[in-house]
């Protein structure tokens, strides 16, 4: 705080650097700069002399050389002959995939648990606080390992599906839950399927248009159109019609046991499921607390005032409480999303091929380029975090209460 006004001084004396508040901050900053530069220089000189002593150098050429190892889950094409950079890309995409999935489900878990915790049902609210406390107070690494262990121990291996009287069977003959992952049917796109997909997309747009029209109508004339069943109808009827008219062009490829594993269908790998579920249920407990705090932060007067205006309870929630609660809920929610992204680096414990496991794991092991790999790894997480923070700042500014 340098808001004090000083009487004007005639000439500059050296002691003013320390005593005069106008100049003192420059002195401090100068000292800080010197300290900063010298410590960076110290660390760097240590680094280079250590590296020189060990005969090493900093080089990123390993990124262009073949990785040599295989990855079990890849979103882009990858073989063991691809480069280390490509392996890192596979890892990055896998990180983003599990983080995205976990963010979605954690929000669902969190909102449900947070709302139920405030419910009047004693048993349910106690059960929810038990859930929140037990997940918030035990390390996420332990949860990841426990959930992965449960999954491996409880679900049957593919071998159990074999034979005339198998120990396990597929759900609806379409979905197989194994301890290596879940196999679900994959769609097969026949000719004409494009039309069906296009119809479906148009229907989705149609639903939004209808809802918008209904809201505008409500505000303009006060007429209330039904929302629920027309939306469903718009969503499904045209698509189903087109689907049958086109002669059912989209088929399903069911997974079937072949050799050691199931083949066909889509495999959602076991490590992905374990990590996804562990992160969602762990972070869900935190989000539940945020949601609860957000709803409780809205003063009772708000809902009472809305009630006095004659709004129904559902509308009080939708139109009065939630819009205000969201302002409180969203910022911590986004930092929980950040936490999910960062915690996904614990994939290493369950063998999921995220970026920490590829770039910071196998590539680091095989090339021995520890400094380069760790730096790249930090750079990636930093980029993600900063972009999410930037989005959050934009949001915060847009919903900020305007004050004096």
């Amino acid at each position, binding site marked *: 705080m340098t808001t004090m006004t000083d009487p004007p001084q005639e000439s500059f004396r050296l002691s003013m650097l320390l005593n005069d508040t106008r100049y003192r901050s420059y002195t401090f900053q100068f000292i800080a700069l010197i300290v900063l530069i010298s410590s960076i220089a110290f660390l760097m000189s240590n680094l280079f002399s*250590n590296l020189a*002593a*060990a*005969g*090493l150098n900093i080089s990123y050429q390993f990124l262009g050389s073949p990785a*040599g*190892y*295989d*990855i*079990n889950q890849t979103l882009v094409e990858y073989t*063991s*002959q691809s480069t280390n950079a490509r392996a890192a890309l596979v890892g990055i995409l896998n990180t983003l995939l599990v983080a995205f999935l976990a963010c979605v489900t954690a929000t669902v878990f969190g909102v449900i648990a947070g709302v139920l915790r405030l419910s009047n049902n004693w048993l349910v609210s106690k059960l929810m606080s038990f859930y929140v406390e037990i997940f918030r107070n035990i390390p996420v690494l332990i949860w990841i390992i426990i959930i992965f*262990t449960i999954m*491996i*121990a409880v679900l*049957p*291996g*593919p*071998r*159990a599906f074999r034979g005339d009287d198998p120990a396990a069977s597929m759900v609806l003959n379409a979905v197989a839950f194994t*301890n*290596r992952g879940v196999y679900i049917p994959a769609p097969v796109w026949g000719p004409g399927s494009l039309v069906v997909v296009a119809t479906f997309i148009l229907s989705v747009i149609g639903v939004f248009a209808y809802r918008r029209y209904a809201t505008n109508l409500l505000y303009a004339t006060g007429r209330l159109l039904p929302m629920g069943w027309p939306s469903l109808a718009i969503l499904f009827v045209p698509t189903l019609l087109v689907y049958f008219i086109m002669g059912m062009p989209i088929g399903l490829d069911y997974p079937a046991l*072949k*050799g*050691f*594993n199931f*083949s066909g269908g889509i495999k959602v790998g*076991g*490590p992905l499921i374990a990590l996804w579920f562990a992160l969602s249920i762990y972070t869900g407990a935190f989000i539940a607390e945020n949601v609860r705090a957000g709803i409780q932060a809205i003063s009772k007067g708000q809902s009472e005032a809305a009630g006095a205006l004659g709004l129904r309870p559902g509308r009080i929630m939708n139109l009065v409480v939630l819009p205000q609660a969201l302002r409180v809920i969203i910022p911590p929610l986004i930092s929980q999303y950040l936490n999910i992204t960062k915690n996904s680096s614990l994939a*290493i*414990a369950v*063998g999921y*091929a995220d970026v920490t*496991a590829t770039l910071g*794991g*196998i590539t*680091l*092991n*095989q*090339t*021995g380029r*520890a400094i380069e790999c760790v730096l790249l790894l930090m750079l990636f997480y930093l980029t993600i975090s900063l972009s999410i923070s930037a989005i959050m700042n934009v949001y915060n500014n847009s919903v900020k209460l305007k004050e004096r």
Partner: protein
Amino acid sequence: MKKSVFFGALTVAGLAAGVAAAGTLDDVKARGKLNCGVTTGLVGFAAPDANGEWNGFDVSVCRAVAAAVLGDASAVEFVPTTGKTRFTALASGEIDMLARNTTWTFSRDVDLKFTFVGVNYYDGQGFMVPKELGVSSAKDLDGATVCIQTGTTTELNLADFFRSNNISYEPVPIETNAEAQQQYLAGACDVYTTDASGLAATRATFEAPGDHVLLPEIISKEPLGPLVRHGDNEWGDVVRWTLNALITAEELGVTSANISEMAAGTNNPEINRLLGTEGTLGEMLGVDADWAMKAISAGGNYGEIFEKNIGESTPIGLARGLNAQWTDGGLIYSPPFR
């Protein structure tokens, strides 16, 4: 702990820096302890027992080096390292030598600048499958899910093997041996692959070891040996010749049982040179004249160490095979002590 102790520790560390920075051999002598990097736990090679004592094949090499240099086989600090941390630990001087079933490869030697002082175990990557799968060859493994313990050259060998045989597989990389074992036993993977010695060690801990078979294919050469930093040749020599002393002792029939009578002098000049009763080998190496005697008494000669930790009488039950003395048709061969 408050800030001050932390800074105090830093100052003390800074002061220690003043006296260090000579050769590793002098450092070790001045410190009175050998810092030896080992694995975080692989029964038979390096694992702490219920009392916290480290035991195993690699551990015995560390103990022999400590005995040769310091005269005390227990003057060893065992630093557990993972596949990720081991090379940095060695390069940065945190450990003096690494005896962590590490494969001697070109790039580790040349690019990462380490000196492998020899080979104490000739290994190769193998496969273990449950008997009930009825698989008799690794080439039948098309489409199998394979558990790999990461951190060694295992991933690369595996990729090469399946690629060259044009069959597919699904890798499941796992950090620790215990977790890999858990997944394999639960059927989350069909095959477990790592070094054949590690497979045998792992199988020995199973409830029913007989239900699992090791496939005949060994898909890689894995010469495992202790390594030191490049550029400190005196220290490299000490570790190299300690290992050679253990091997030579077995070849010449010097055991921990008869070493004290042999040290009194024998008719065999090579034994005398080895045990320091003739010649000045110890002095040339910069250690005591009876260095090799101490190293051998620490845990016995190479054969004894092998039998005690991983041999056929132990649960791990490895045959000597390639690791027999060259006189018995194996590859274990030490240059002469002359």
